[in-house]
């Protein structure tokens, strides 16, 4: 396919939960497309209990198949962080893979949710140990899949990675930034050319 699989959300491994659905869909700002656990999926009430189970089963199956496999726990943790890996069996061999941290739905809820994609903990490269980025702290403190960190209250972000190595940040509200007061020495040094031309773009 030569066109985007979805506009507005979850494109290219990056999903923004809640705030931008209005770009394409019905503008339901409370929709959540990332669930950290089966319990959380059920509690959210957006999918039926059966649908939640189905989506998690799909994601778990794809998870073992698609996740990067390591021969030792330490090699896996070097890439994904301490406590982020689990053992599994693949082709009759013991392997270590990053644990399932959640699922991401490929389509909007209005379209039935679509196939679920497994989400992994963020890589060490994306979230280095001690990173102050809130989405990294949230990801590390939540640990592996079983903790079921609540998601959807306040302005919170959590980092993940996909099995293809893309970085994903899911957030439930707009980004907050602190404004600091600094001394401004001048203003308005750009823009003068625009007044003599009709268009600044092409």
């Amino acid at each position, binding site marked *: 396919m030569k066109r985007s699989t979805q506009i*507005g959300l979850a494109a290219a491994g990056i999903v923004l939960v809640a705030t931008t659905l209005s770009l394409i869909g019905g503008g339901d700002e409370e929709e959540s497309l990332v669930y950290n656990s089966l319990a959380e999926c059920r509690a959210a009430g957006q999918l039926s209990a059966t649908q939640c189970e189905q989506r998690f089963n799909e994601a778990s199956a794809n998870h073992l198949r698609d996740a990067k496999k390591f021969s030792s726990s330490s090699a896996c943790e070097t890439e994904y962080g301490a406590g982020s890996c689990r053992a599994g069996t693949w082709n009759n061999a013991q392997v270590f893979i990053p644990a399932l941290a959640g699922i991401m739905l490929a389509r909007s809820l209005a379209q039935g949710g679509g196939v679920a994609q497994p989400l992994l903990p963020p890589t060490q490269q994306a979230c280095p140990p001690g990173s102050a980025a809130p989405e990294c702290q949230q990801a590390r403190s939540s640990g592996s899949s079983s903790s079921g960190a609540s998601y959807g209250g306040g302005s919170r972000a959590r980092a993940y990675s996909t099995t293809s190595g893309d970085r994903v940040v899911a957030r439930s509200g707009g980004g907050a930034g602190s404004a600091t007061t600094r001394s401004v020495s001048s203003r308005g040094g750009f823009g003068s050319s625009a007044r003599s*031309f009709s268009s600044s*773009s092409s």
Partner: protein
Amino acid sequence: MRRIVLPPRPDWPEQVERLGFGFHSPDGAPYWSESAAYAFSLEQIERDIEAPTGEIEQLCFAFIDRALASEAILTRLAIPQAQWSFIAESWKRGDRNLYGRLDFAYDGKGPARLLEYNADTPTALLEASVVQWDWLEQAMARGALPKGCDQFNSIHERLVAAFAGLRQPSPFRLHLACVADSAEDRGTVDYLLDCAVQAGLDARFTEIEEIGLLSDGGFCDGANQPIETLFKLYPWEWLFRERYAPNLATARCQFVEPPWKALLSNKGLLAYLWEMEPGHPNLLPAFFEGDKRCATLGPSHVRKPIYSREGANVALVDRGAVVHSDDGPYGAEGFILQQTAPIPAFDGAYPVLGSWLVASQACGLGIREDDTPITGNLSRFVPHYIAP
């Protein structure tokens, strides 16, 4: 490549407005036009548009290396000398670029021929990325087009991915700026801001005119927030000539598009590409005005100022006589002459194919057609699809 006449959706203005596309009928004349669409085969898209787009981008990179080693070229491109090292540093550092649009003449049979490269401030983005995508989905859903049609258009997905990768560590704070009084530019920036937010960035809009200079030498937005990364829908050739030009290199700001795009967003590029690859099937012969090789173009050619937007000051010369010209304020920095491209007429309309690059990867197509062979700011955007 065929031009297919289709009935527009009765409620098309509401349908496109719902996507945030507010400038569909500037001055009352519809700019978004879905009473026709262009149909392509997959082979036409991949062989004739996608592949040459990637190839020309690589050729442009080779040109940048060449230009940065040549004072003569930088001078010819009218790049202020004070900015040469600023541009060179951005290229050496490998500053990432976000997007660009190559405009081609194409008739579905011969090779697509490059008309120009909008490398710095391309627009007509939302309509290509989102509006025509949604149009196709709806056309297939209601049976106006067969299911299984496709479109050369992963622009949206790639923009979101590209924003996240513009700078490390990511996510980061990004300011996006354009002029205060252009609804069209603001629409483009709002859409890009949306993509940046989806990429996890802390994205904020600022008017280009309200940018300030902090006492520490950095730029700031209207709320005095430092600007560390700035997407600007505002041409480099203007930034280079305004009051803050001397601060560009010292403001510790990463710009998108990066300064090296100034070397490509210049019609002089067309003359240099032809010099590097004479006879390239996707290029048109082009020379700087005054170059004696202009004589080889014959009496029919197009005269373009090296800085020009939306067709302004472009003149079409046929057998020595100016048959069409578009007035405008450009031209002080010189002109190039380019062989007239055979822009084919489809039902009396002249389509120009805008081939989009995101992070230097060919990923989409947006077609504008006009009633004259020069695509100006009164052209219409017409959707396309790939027939199954």
